[in-house]
C-alpha cells in the first residue's frame, strides 16, 4: 500500500458536498436474447439527510431500476451496471463486496415496494416477517423480536397490532398490508428509505393515508426518503425536490415549488398539463402524444424529440446537456429557457 498517502482511507473520506447518497452518472443495461436495452443512461441524483426526493416518470423510464441498483437487488444477469458510482456516506457501494452490500441493505438503506401482497411472503405471519430482520441481522431473541414487531406495527398505526401479529398477509386490507411493509422496512432504523410506488396499488383515500404516514415517519425518525412515483399529485405535498426521468435519464431536476410553477422541460410541462384541473372546465384533457421509446432503439438526439411540441432539427441531431437554470435547477432541453418562460406566463 505505497499509495495509501495519496488515496484517503474510506473512513476519513468526507462525502463531497456532504451528500448522504450520491448517484453519479449511472449506466445500466439489460442484456436479453432480443438485444440490449439501455435502461439507465447517465442518471445522477443526490439525497441529503432528512429530505425527500421524488423520482417521477412513466413505466420503463428507469426509476425503479435506479432504486434497485442502489439497493443492490438487481437481477444480474440480465442487468449489467456499465458505469457510474453510487456513493453512500462517501463510500462507493458498487465497489463493495456482496457481503458488505448485504450489511448496508435494510440497516442503512431500506426499501418498500409497490404491491405489498406479492412483496410479502404469503406463507409466514406478518409479525414473523417483521421480526425476521431483527432475529437474523441483530441477533435478537424470538420474544424480543416479537415485542419489537408489535411496536413497529403500532408505529405504522396498525390497529390492535398485538392481536394481528400472527395474521398472514392475505388477511390484511391493501392499506394495512402496505403498513406492514413499511413497519418491516423500519425494523433496523435505516437512514434512507426508498419507497417504490408505495401507493400505486391502493385506493385513492388509502393512498393519502399512506403518504401522510410516510411523511410523518420520515420526519419523526429523521430519515431521508426517495419517493418513486408516476403520480404528480402524490408528490406535491411530500417531496422537497423532484427528479423527472425519461428514457433512463433525468431530464429535469428542481425543487417542488418552482417545478410546479414553471416546468423547464416540455415533458414535465406535458405531464403537469395532463392533470385534470377543477378550475378549468369544459376543456379537453391535454395528453402527451405518442409512446415512451423502445429502450433497445432510443431515438437520436433528445430521446423525447418524437413527442415534443418544441422539436427543432437540433433536437434530432444533438443530445442535450443538463442546462443549469439557477437555484440548482437543471433541464436536459435545448430550449429549457423558452419552455420555462412559456410555462410561467400561462
Amino acid at each position, binding site marked *: 500500500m505505497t499509495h495509501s498517502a495519496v488515496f484517503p482511507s474510506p473512513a476519513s473520506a468526507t462525502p463531497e458536498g456532504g451528500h448522504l447518497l450520491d448517484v453519479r452518472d449511472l449506466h445500466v443495461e439489460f442484456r436479453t436474447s432480443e438485444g440490449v436495452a439501455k435502461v439507465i443512461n447517465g442518471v445522477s441524483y443526490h439525497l441529503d439527510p432528512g429530505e425527500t426526493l421524488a423520482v417521477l416518470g412513466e413505466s420503463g423510464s428507469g426509476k425503479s431500476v435506479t432504486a434497485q441498483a442502489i*439497493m443492490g*437487488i438487481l437481477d444480474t444477469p440480465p442487468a449489467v451496471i456499465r458505469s457510474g458510482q453510487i456513493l453512500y456516506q462517501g463510500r462507493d457501494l458498487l465497489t463493495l463486496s456482496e457481503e458488505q452490500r*448485504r*450489511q*448496508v*441493505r*435494510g*440497516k442503512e438503506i*431500506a*426499501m418498500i*415496494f409497490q*404491491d405489498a401482497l*406479492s*412483496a*410479502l*411472503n*404469503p*406463507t*409466514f405471519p406478518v409479525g414473523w416477517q417483521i421480526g*425476521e*430482520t431483527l432475529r*437474523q*441481522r441483530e441477533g435478537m431473541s424470538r420474544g424480543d423480536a416479537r415485542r419489537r414487531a408489535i411496536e413497529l406495527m403500532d408505529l405504522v398505526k396498525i390497529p390492535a397490532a398485538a392481536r394481528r401479529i400472527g395474521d*398472514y398477509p*392475505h388477511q390484511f386490507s391493501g392499506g394495512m398490508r402496505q403498513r406492514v*411493509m413499511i413497519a*418491516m422496512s423500519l*425494523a433496523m432504523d435505516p437512514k434512507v428509505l426508498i419507497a417504490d410506488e408505495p401507493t400505486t396499488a391502493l385506493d385513492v383515500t388509502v393512498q393519502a393515508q399512506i403518504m401522510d404516514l410516510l411523511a410523518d415517519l420520515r420526519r419523526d425518525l429523521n430519515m431521508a426518503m426517495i419517493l418513486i412515483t408516476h403520480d404528480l399529485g402524490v408528490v406535491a405535498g411530500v417531496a422537497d425536490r423532484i427528479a423527472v426521468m425519461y428514457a433512463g435519464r433525468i431530464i429535469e431536476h428542481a425543487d417542488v415549488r418552482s417545478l410546479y410553477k414553471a416546468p423547464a422541460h416540455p415533458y414535465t410541462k406535458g405531464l403537469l398539463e395532463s392533470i385534470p384541473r377543477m378550475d378549468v372546465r369544459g376543456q379537453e384533457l391535454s395528453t402527451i402524444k405518442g409512446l415512451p421509446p423502445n429502450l433497445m432503439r432510443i431515438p437520436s438526439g433528445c430521446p423525447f424529440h418524437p413527442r415534443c411540441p418544441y422539436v427543432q432539427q437540433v433536437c434530432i441531431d444533438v443530445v442535450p446537456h443538463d442546462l443549469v437554470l439557477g437555484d440548482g435547477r437543471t433541464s436536459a432541453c435545448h430550449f429549457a429557457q423558452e419552455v420555462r418562460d412559456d410555462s410561467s406566463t400561462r
Partner: protein
Amino acid sequence: MFRYILRRLLQMVLAFFGTTLIVYALMFAGQGDPIQALAGERPVTAAQRAYLTEKYHLDATGVGGFFYRYFDYVKNLVQGDLGESLTGRSIGQILQQAWPVTVKLALIALAVAILFGVTAGVIAGIRRASIFDNSTLLLTLLVLGIPTIVLAPLAQYFLGVKLQLFPPTAGSNPTFYALLLPGIVLGSLSLATALRLTRTSVAENLRADYVRTAKSKGLLRRRIISVHVLRNSLIPVITFLGVELGNLMSGAIITEGVFNIPGVGFNLFRAIKTEDGPLVVGIVSVLVVVYLVSNLVVDVLYAVLDPRIRYE
C-alpha cells in the same frame, strides 16, 4: 376445517359405496355360471349346486337379485368380513399378508423420490440452464418415456442377473434388500415427476416479489432460499407426493409382477387372471378406502402448508 373434514368423510362413504357397486357389477356381469367358474373344469353335483345357490342367493335373478347379493356383500363388508376368495381362502387374511409388503415397497419408492427427486429439483431450480439442469431434464424425460413394463425387466436383467448387485426376485417374505431394486424402479417415475415439479416451482418462486423483499432486508442468500423459497416451492411438491403415496400403496401390479413380490398388486393381478370375482372386489374395495383417505390427508395437509387456503 372440522366441518370440512366431516363433510369429506361423508362424501367418502358415498364414494366408497359407489365404487364398490360398480366394481361388483362389472366383475359379476361378465361371468356366465359362477358356480361352474368356482369349480373350474370339474363337474358339479346337484347337491353342491343347491348348497352354493342357497349360500350366495343365486336363485334371485335379475336386477333385484343383483342388489340382493350386493347388499349381502356390503353387510358383511361393514362388519369387517371381506368374504372368501373362490379358492376358499379368507380375503382378509390374503390382504393381511400382502399389505405390509406393498407398504414397504411404496415407502422405499417414495423415499427414493424425495431423496433424489426433490433434492435434484431444488438444485436444478436454483441453477437454471446449467449443465446440471439440462442433464436432469434429459434424464427425467428418458425415465418418463420408458414404461415400467420395459424398465422393470431391464433393471432386473442388468442389475439383478448380469451384475448381481441385487436379488433379481423377491419371493415370499422379502427382505428390505430384496425390495430395494423394485422400490427404485417403482420410485423412478415419481422421482422424475417430483424433480420436474420441484425445479419449476423453485425457479418460479426465485423470481417472486417476496424474494426481492427478503433480499432488501439484507438476509443471507442461503436463508432466502432455504426458508422463503423452499417453504413456498414445496407446497405443490408435497401435494403431489401425497397423492403419489396413495397410488403406490394401492399396489404396483407390473413391478410386483416382474420381481415376484407377493404384494397387493401381485394378488390383484392373479385374481383378475383367474377370474376370482370375490377376491378382485375385496381388494379393490380396500384400495378405494386407501385412496380416499390418502386424498383427504393431502387436502388437509395442503391447507396446513398454505395459510391462504381455508376450507369452509
